[in-house]
């Protein structure tokens, strides 16, 4: 991993069109400003990871469980009415 030291208001550029600027530092928290083209998705990594893992699990489901669950949902709906 490339490690760079930057001061507040200094930036790094990645490729031709991504710029990350250090906006401020407070204790353990760093605020970053990111300029990137629209087709580059910028996401907090922990949230992205959660969704990636959840997608991987979701792709494993089997049809049988859902037919039973559909029955349960429909019963719940009826009991509400």
């Amino acid at each position, binding site marked *: 991993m490339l490690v760079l030291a930057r001061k507040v208001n200094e930036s790094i550029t990645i490729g031709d069109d991504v710029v990350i600027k250090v906006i401020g530092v407070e204790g353990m928290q760093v605020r970053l400003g990111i300029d990137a083209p629209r087709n580059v998705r910028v996401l907090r990594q922990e949230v992205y990871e959660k*969704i*990636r893992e959840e997608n991987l699990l979701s792709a*494993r489901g089997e049809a049988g469980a859902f037919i039973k*669950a559909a029955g349960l949902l429909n019963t719940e709906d009826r009991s509400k009415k």
Partner: protein
Amino acid sequence: MKLETRDFGSVDIDEQKTIMMPSGMPGFPGMQRFVILEREESRPFLWYQCVDDPGLAFVIINPLLFKPDYSLDLTPAMKDMSWEEPEEGNLVVYAIVNASEGVPEKITANLIGPLVINTGKNEAVQMVISGSPYSHKQPIFQST
């Protein structure tokens, strides 16, 4: 067009209804074309079957069915996809469902990674929402 599916064998689909996901889904790079399959016996669950890989399918559901107060700012999805303002009425939101536990009662839905489909353009994006009060493992059946 004939399509091999994960759970329903070979099915006939209308190619016009193929949904494009230019940025794919986290965990499944390169998988960009999907179709929605519906089965009478498993409603309200729908299948989000990948066209590029017959072995890949997700089950999706309208989140309002189990989380009636679910609300979402769709602006980031519209920006990501360059969808214009008037198209907002064409947007449909689904939650991706996780049944990996194999027990119907333990089925959860991911409310921070909703699938947003533009039915006018047949394009979709999976949003990644941070800082929201919602869970990525919201039980569909409330434990009583």
